[in-house]
Structures are given as structure tokens and as C-alpha cells.
């Protein structure tokens, strides 16, 4: 009980939690919006190279997290075009910032949302969309009032999965955003460090915290 009242300790305990929540929320909002739009667009439209395009989108789900982290470092690193552009705009590299953690979470969570959204939209009977089209609705109205409500179960489960994946992201984040306490240390990395340094008490507290957050989501 003493510990809980200790201000420094609380600071140390809560900081990864707030950071995790912030990163997971931000990245899953982005993933939900992009994933829903991409899922709807690609659910029905066939085009050349669709299979290859989809395979690339899905890769982060199959590849080991450290490989994802490796590619993030290569793509956003100081030697790449993108990395240099970012450094020029923001006056600092993105690697080892919490924005890097957001990007890592987006990349690993996106396939989950995209897949859920796509199968959700594919599950909407084509007839029903055609009926709405003949009924005088434009494409935007169909998307908003027909497709989204009918795919809502898949969209919600995709959103939850994405949030959970973003919250639990470890490997790619560790490599791309690092493990800087108060700056890029999330719950999963904090647990790793706590165990590594033999601090079982802190590890238990963070594990309980993340399990509680996971249950609150469901």
C-alpha cells in the first residue's frame, strides 16, 4: 500500500499505461477508418494485380514482428527518402519517438481490420445494395445506410481486434520506437524489461493492468 501512495512509483507504473492507451487509440482510429474504406472498396471491385496488392497488405500479419520492425527501420530510417523527408519537415527523425510506435501499431493492426471489413462487406448481399441503387440512393448513401449497418458486426469485431493488436504490439515497436521510459515505453515493453530485471512485482501489476483493459474492451 505504501508503494501505491508513492508518487514516483505511481508515475513509473502509470506512464506506460497512458502511453499504450494513447498509441493504441490513435493507431486503431486510423486503422478503422482506412481499413473500412479499403475493405469496402476492395470487397467488390476486381482489378489487375489485386491479389499482389492484397498480399502486400496482409504481409505484416504473417511476417515475424522483428522483420516488420526491420522494414520499418529501413523505410523510415535516416538513409531512406521518406526518413529524410520526415527529418526535414519535423527537424528530427521519427525513429525512437512515440509516433514510431503509432506507425508500428498501424502496420500490424491494419491487416486485421482490413480483413474483417472486407469479409463483412462481402457478406452484404449484392441484391440489397442493388435494391438501394434502384431505390434512388447514391453510392455514399448506400455505404452509410446500407453497407455499414449490415457489416457492423464484422466492423466492430475488426475494430476490437485491431485495438487489441495495437495495444499488445511488442516486437516491431521495441525495434522501431525503442523502450525509452516515459517516452516510448508501452506496457508490453515495460513487462519485458521488468521481467528481465527481475522486478516480478511491477510485471504482475502491468499484466493485471493490460488484462483488465482487454476485458473492459469486450
Amino acid at each position: 500500500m505504501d508503494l501505491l501512495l508513492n508518487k514516483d512509483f505511481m508515475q513509473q507504473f502509470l506512464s506506460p499505461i497512458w502511453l499504450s492507451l494513447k498509441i493504441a487509440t490513435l493507431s486503431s482510429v486510423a486503422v478503422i477508418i482506412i481499413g473500412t474504406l479499403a475493405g469496402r472498396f476492395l470487397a467488390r471491385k476486381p482489378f489487375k494485380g489485386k491479389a499482389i496488392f492484397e498480399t502486400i497488405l496482409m504481409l505484416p500479419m504473417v511476417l515475424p514482428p522483428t522483420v516488420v520492425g526491420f522494414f520499418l527501420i529501413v523505410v523510415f530510417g535516416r538513409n531512406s527518402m521518406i526518413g529524410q523527408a520526415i527529418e526535414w519537415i519535423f527537424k528530427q527523425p521519427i525513429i525512437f519517438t512515440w509516433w514510431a510506435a503509432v506507425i508500428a501499431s498501424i502496420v500490424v493492426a491494419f491487416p486485421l481490420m482490413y480483413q474483417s471489413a472486407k469479409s463483412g462487406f462481402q457478406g452484404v448481399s449484392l441484391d440489397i445494395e442493388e435494391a438501394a441503387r434502384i431505390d434512388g440512393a447514391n453510392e455514399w448513401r448506400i455505404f452509410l445506410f446500407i453497407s455499414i449497418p449490415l457489416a457492423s458486426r464484422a466492423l466492430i469485431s475488426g475494430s476490437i481486434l485491431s485495438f487489441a493488436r495495437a495495444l499488445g504490439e511488442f516486437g516491431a515497436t521495441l525495434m522501431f520506437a525503442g523502450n525509452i521510459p516515459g517516452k516510448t515505453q508501452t506496457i508490453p515493453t515495460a513487462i519485458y524489461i521488468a521481467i528481465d530485471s527481475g522486478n516480478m512485482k511491477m510485471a504482475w501489476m502491468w499484466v493485471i493492468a493490460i488484462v483488465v483493459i482487454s476485458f473492459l474492451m469486450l
Partner: protein
Amino acid sequence: MADLKLQHIYKNYNKNVLAVKDFNLDIKDREFIVLVGPSGCGKSTILRLVAGLEDLSQGDIIIEGKRMNDVAPKDRDIAFVFQNYALYPHMNVYHNMAFGLKSRKFPKDEIDRRVKEATQVLGLEEYMNRKPKALSGGQRQRVALGRAIVRDAKIFLMDEPLSNLDAKLRAQMRTEIIKLHQRLQTTTIYVTHDQTEAMTMATRLVVMNNGVIQQVGAPEEIYEKPENVFVGSFIGSPAMNFFTGILSKGKMHIGDVSIVLPERTNQSLHEQGYANKEITLGIRPEDFRDEFAFIATSSGSIIDAKVEVKELLGAETLIYSQIAGQPFIARLDARSDIKQEQILPLAMDMNKVHFFDCKTENRISLDGE
């Protein structure tokens, strides 16, 4: 409430599959046109082309004089009733009907008025707040009709709307749709593979096969004078029976059975060069007769049919038999005294037989026609 012209319509899905070929049809205002044919004959494709759900490969669709080829579905002012109803599952009956009007920005009280009127006509008042899942098949079908009615569209398109209902309900809804058309008088194209629906509902019937129109006409006309073997066999249940035989000396020889032809028929067939050639005779099951009086006066067209199977269908009996290996079905009044394996003398009603060319399978017109 509009006329509709379909001119030289072609549709191919890829280079090899031709779904519709040179389809021409002028539909007058207030007509109830039924497109009928086996599955895959292109009838649903026609409907989807008229609705704008698919693009034409060639030809023109003209509604009230305006070319519609490139007009979006929502701007064609047509209503479509889907085979599986295609109701909006997350909306109740009211909103299912109101959605189209809302999309077209009708004022709220006008929407209300129209939906209420339609639910009254269709007997759905009690179900206004139910979602489609909580409705029976027949009620869903009515909501789908209601969605078309409230729109007050120029043309109704219906794609096998009754095929998911059971037999009793199908008969009932058939009648309701006929009454609805009598009341609203909206030009309608109705697609079905069910020939009972085709016969009972159409003001004009269009029989299709393999993407090509086979015959267009009033149902009675098509039943009584099928243009070719396909139409004869497709319309009518059980199907028309066909016998192939050789025409010689005023008789048609089917195996070892000979049928005497009426003098005028024989003469007309001879004049058209069918003497001593193979020819196809078509006769409907009900045009076999077993009444004593009829048999006594038709000595030339009697066959001794061995009863292979007898089916008692309440008011009538079907007899399955064959002539020289060519099977046929005869439809007689209900008689419980007919036995399996029995030899039953049957007369063909020679005023009601049809002749077709063996190769082209087209009807041979006789003088009397």
C-alpha cells in the same frame, strides 16, 4: 405507366458467353409482359439490363422515347422486385418502404401517406414496426412489392418474385399481383421459369431459350399454337408429347403404329413436301381421349397403350405409356379402375395435334390455320 422498347439487344459476359442475342420487344403502356424460359435462358439478364444493373453490349433501351443506355439505375424511374426479396434487414417494414422515397427527398408527410396507403393495400398495417426477420415468406414478399408500389415508378420489373414461396402461398400471391396490376396499371416485366405463372399472369408472354426469343404472344395463342418444339414442350404440364414417324399414304407411321391423318392435314403436309419424310407429331396429354363415344368415332387414331405407371392426381389421372419406344403421358379424368400393365385404348384428338419439321423443329403451318 410508360412504354418500353428493347431494340436489337445483345449481352455477352465475356467473348464466348452470349447471354442475350438480338432481343427485340415493344412493350406498350400498361402491359403485363411475362418472360419465361428455363434457367440460364437470359430472361433475368434482360431485366437487369432494363434496370441498368448491367451494361448492354449492343442495342438500345428506350423508355417513353428516351434512350436509357447510359442513365444510372436510380434515374431510370423503375422499381425492381428481387427473387430473394432483398429487403433491408436492419430496417423495419416502414423504413424498408420509405428508404427509396427518402433517397429521392420526398417530404416527410408525403412519405408517410404513401407508405400507409401501400401497407393498407397489402394488408401489412400490423407489421409496420417488424423487421424482415420477424416476417413470414409471404409477408416479406408483400413488403418487397410495397417498396415498389410506394415509388409509383414508371415500370415494374419482377425477377421470379414468387419462387421462394410454397405452392399454396405462390398461388395466392399470384392472384394478388394480378389484382395489383389491374389496380395500378403499371407497365410490368415479370420473369419466371414457372409456366403456370406465365400462363395465368401475362397479357403477353415471351418464351426464351438460350438467349433468343422463341415466341411472343398471348398465353392461349402460345399454348394452342407453339411455334416450335421447344415452346410446345416448355409450356404445358405435363409437357406436350412428341412422336417422330414417317408420313406416307395419308398415314403417319410411328414404329408399327399407324395414325390416319385428316384429309386436309395430309394434303397440306404433302404440298409442303413432307411426303415419305420424317416428321414430328406433337400432342398434349389432355388431347388423348378414353371416352367410349370418342373412341368409337375415331377408329383411325386409336392406340393401344400399355399402362406403365398410373398417377391419380385427385381430379385427374395421368397414364405413362409409350408408342414404339417413344414415351408419352396421357391425362384422363379421374378413374380408379385403370390398372397397372393394363392395355387401354386411347384416341388422339386429331383436331388438336401439331406437326413440326424434324430438323428445324419449327411448326409446320397447315391450311386450316
